[in-house]
């Protein structure tokens, strides 16, 4: 049977991808950011899954204009990195695990999550930057990736509680997939940031750190944070943290925290990152 063995959360700041692609990891500005990912790069060598379910948001690259699904699964065989205005990132094509993606899509609908299937799309920095941070710059990504896109941009977004329930439903779906697969769930985005207006540049370190403190062992505390509180406390884009809740819920009750990291700034954003292994 398939099983979820670990979860990773990380910010997905586009400038981090540009810094990797342009070889700027040693620059004084970027070095302290990349140092926070040295652990996961080593860890990933012994913990390469068969499939990553990668929870992210599209940044007006494939979605948001004509179609705004609340939850959507990428259902193409492969996904190219999107051209977000400066050419495609020089990173490998992302390959899907269609059988598991189809199973999850079916199970989610049965569990009353009316998921959208996307048969063709490119994937933007929201998906490719986390892959680069964890796997570095390989010729091919070492595993299959199922993109799971969440609307965190156009209000109303799903609530944190709804995201939690989606994570639980993903957990149940994976557990009932007959093939023997090692699956990880990654939650991306965040932490506090706001990208417009006189509050642009908002960072709430205290609030972010409490979020990380509670996520491993007392995540129930985080489930009921309202959309309004995310906006007020973590900024209009800080609400991306609801995607971390999907990851955490998918891991089940007990997790072992292997690593945590927090750093301000990367571009406009507070960078947060955790690595969890499941206990069961």
């Amino acid at each position: 049977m398939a099983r979820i063995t670990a979860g990773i959360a990380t910010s997905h700041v586009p400038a981090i991808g540009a810094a990797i692609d342009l070889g700027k990891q040693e620059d004084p500005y970027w070095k302290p950011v990349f140092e926070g990912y040295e652990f996961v790069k080593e860890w990933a060598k012994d913990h390469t899954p068969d499939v990553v379910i990668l929870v992210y948001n599209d940044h007006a690259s494939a979605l948001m204009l004509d179609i705004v699904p609340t939850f959507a699964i990428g259902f193409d065989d492969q996904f190219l990195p999107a051209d977000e205005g400066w050419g495609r990132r020089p990173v490998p094509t992302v390959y899907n695990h269609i059988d598991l993606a189809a199973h999850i899509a079916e199970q989610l609908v049965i569990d009353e999550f009316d998921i959208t299937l996307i048969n063709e799309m490119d994937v933007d920095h929201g998906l490719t930057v986390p892959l680069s941070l964890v796997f570095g710059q390989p010729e091919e990504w070492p595993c299959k990736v199922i993109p799971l896109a969440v609307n965190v941009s156009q209000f109303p977004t799903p609530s944190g509680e709804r995201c939690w329930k989606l994570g639980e439903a993903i957990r149940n779906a994976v557990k009932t997939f007959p093939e023997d697969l090692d699956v990880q769930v990654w939650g991306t985005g965040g932490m506090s940031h706001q990208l417009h207006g006189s509050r642009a540049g908002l960072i709430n370190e205290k609030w972010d750190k409490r979020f990380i403190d509670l996520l491993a062992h007392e995540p129930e505390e985080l489930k009921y944070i309202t959309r309004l509180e995310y906006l007020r406390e973590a900024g209009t884009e800080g609400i991306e943290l609801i995607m971390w809740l999907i990851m955490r819920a998918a891991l089940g009750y007990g997790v072992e925290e292997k690593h945590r990291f927090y750093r301000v700034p990367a571009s406009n954003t507070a960078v947060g990152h955790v690595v969890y292994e499941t206990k069961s």
Partner: protein
Amino acid sequence: MPRTRLYPLEDLEDIPGTKVFTAKASRQAYHLHKFCMSLMKAENREEFKADERAYLDKFKMSEAQKQAVLDRDMMKLIELGGNMYFLVKIASTDGMSALKAVSATSGMSADEYAKMMLEGGRSPEGLRSIRDRN
């Protein structure tokens, strides 16, 4: 039955200096955003750069939106319904970083803004609620 909610939706307008990107804003900016997303193709970026006005006239944007694009007035574009994830594609076409594009909506100079970020960002103190002034 009246619907119970955790907070009145009007509270979304109670955050200082913040325009929440709602379905209505998305509609208001649809053609502006269609233009922004067209810049995801290299040939379109070239066409836009060669004659900005002519390129913009291919889209059903309002005159105010077209003028704000020509002026690179990010603050105005946000006011006219724009969302940064779309607008940043104009900045990328210009070879401008997201940091600079965002700073342009804040009323600060790019240097001041970059310095503020290096020093830990903007504190939320006093910026959570217009009503509660906290």
